[in-house]
């Protein structure tokens, strides 16, 4: 092997890249302690004072604490509910010889990428007919449906790359279909399930169009909807908006720190020979 100059260069280079990637987040945290004028005169400065007044206002006065609970509730139900449904549906695609397989997968692509803006009006009529306006279910049900579609895409492609020996062996041992799905296939697909869950957590957490119209009650709002409270008709409260943004992102950042290993495991697919 040649002597590699990157032994020294690599850490340096990646450090620079890391700083560039992270700096917007760092700036936005710093800026949440500044007033408007300081923000507009460039963020390359240390805030003159560190005061948590903005954070207190956003959490208490603007009820972001409550919104965090709402968003957590909606997101966790959506993500958790979607997984078993997606596992089962994907199993029928990977284990079974069924017709319309491609159609189902195409439908999943459509479902995972459906433009929410256009869904808004029919969705409101539907939820209104069901009496679910201002009920978390009005948001949970459609987002779960979208999440199922996304999960299936991730799961299907992961499972296609799995070595078949495990499953064949289990089958030869006389394992039932049910056993095969939940005891063999699911543990094998854990990385894919985890990464799909993590990605859909972020998607659901940040989505705001359906909660905006389906949960008009301000106490039922989600965090991204709550951010709208800082821009009025003419005035935008930039410091509070940034503070609110950080409170909105904070749980996701913590979430990433805990689970970042999983994000990559599941969507990096097994190599096919």
């Amino acid at each position, binding site marked *: 092997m040649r002597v590699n100059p990157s032994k020294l260069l690599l850490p340096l280079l990646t450090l620079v890249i890391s700083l560039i990637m992270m700096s*917007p987040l760092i700036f936005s945290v710093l800026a949440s302690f500044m007033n408007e004028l300081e923000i507009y005169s460039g963020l390359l400065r240390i805030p003159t004072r560190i005061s948590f007044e903005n954070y207190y206002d956003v959490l208490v006065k603007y009820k972001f604490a409550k919104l965090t609970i709402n968003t957590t509730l909606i997101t966790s139900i959506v993500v958790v509910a979607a997984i078993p449904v997606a596992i*089962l549906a994907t199993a029928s695609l990977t284990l*079974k*010889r069924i017709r319309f397989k491609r159609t189902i997968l195409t439908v999943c692509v459509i479902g995972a990428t*459906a*433009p929410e803006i256009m869904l808004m009006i029919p969705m409101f009529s539907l939820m209104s007919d069901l009496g679910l306006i201002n009920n978390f279910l009005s948001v949970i049900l459609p987002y779960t449906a979208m999440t199922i579609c996304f999960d299936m895409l*991730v799961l299907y492609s992961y499972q296609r790359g799995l070595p078949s020996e495990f499953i064949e062996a289990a089958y030869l041992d006389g394992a039932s279909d049910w056993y095969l799905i939940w005891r063999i296939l699911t543990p094998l697909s854990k990385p894919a399930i985890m990464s799909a869950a993590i990605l859909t957590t972020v998607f659901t957490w940040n989505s705001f169009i359906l909660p905006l119209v389906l949960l008009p009650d301000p106490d039922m709002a989600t965090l991204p909807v709550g951010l709208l409270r800082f821009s009025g008709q003419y005035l935008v409260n930039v410091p509070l908006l940034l503070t609110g943004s950080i409170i909105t992102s904070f749980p996701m950042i913590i979430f990433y720190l805990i689970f970042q290993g999983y994000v990559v495991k599941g969507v990096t697919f097994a190599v096919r020979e």
Partner: protein
Amino acid sequence: MNVMSGPKSPYNYRKQFKNVIGYLYLIPFAVFTIPFLFYPFSQAFYYIFLEWDGFGEKKFIGIYNFIRMLGDRRFIEALVANSFYIIFFWALPIILGLLLTALVGRRSFLGQGIFRIAMLTPLAMTSVAIGIVFYTIFSPSGLLNEIARVLNIPVKIAWLGSTPTARLAVGLVGTWAIIGFATILFISALQKIPESFLEIAELEGATDFQKLRYVIIPYLKHTIIFVSLFSLIGALGTTAYGIVASLTGGAYYTRPLAHYGYAVAFVEYEVGYGAAIIFIPAVVGLILSYIIYRVE
């Protein structure tokens, strides 16, 4: 992510099961998606054939909305902007991400943990915060002009105030938003390449670039496809929309199609035409992902 094509699965045990059960497994999926996603979706799809102000009577006009686009200057402008964003949201993150992957390779290095976390931070930021922070970089009194001033470079001051530079700014923010995610996925996929392949390549004296071309890219195909799908959705839908809305306030020359469609539907009250415009990127996304799978 082999969604639409690919060889028949090699599993022979499948034949043993009664296939009917396979359909039963799809029931929960259908229970969730048909009433709560595809039924409203089909209604929304119907809008694209309507002349409708969102409040009053709906008038069926067939495909007229699509004919109308051809003569709509603002539509063309949004289409051009959006095509431009696809380069920055899709192509650039993948190319740069692969180069970075080739560079980092499978080496472990100091600060690896920080690098991973740093690369994923854009995903955790709201588009509002992204917009505000990058505004302070591109604004007349922003960081970019400040640097230019210090270095005595005469530059155009209003980065966001002219079509090419504003689109470039949006594009660069998009690249930043997606490149980290792409790179992290590529690097970890690289860990799975059989040791022997890279060793052989090295023994044969392959350069970093040759390794990238002949070993890494073919083995990362699946991952590249996944990242492509993810970034295309971003370029055609919410990511680009969010960045444009918060960075330039949705200035007309920076609007992607989804944004223009929204304005048509809900500011100008042409819900049918707006819906048709919003469906264009969705359809383009579908076609592009189909092509990607076929290429594989």
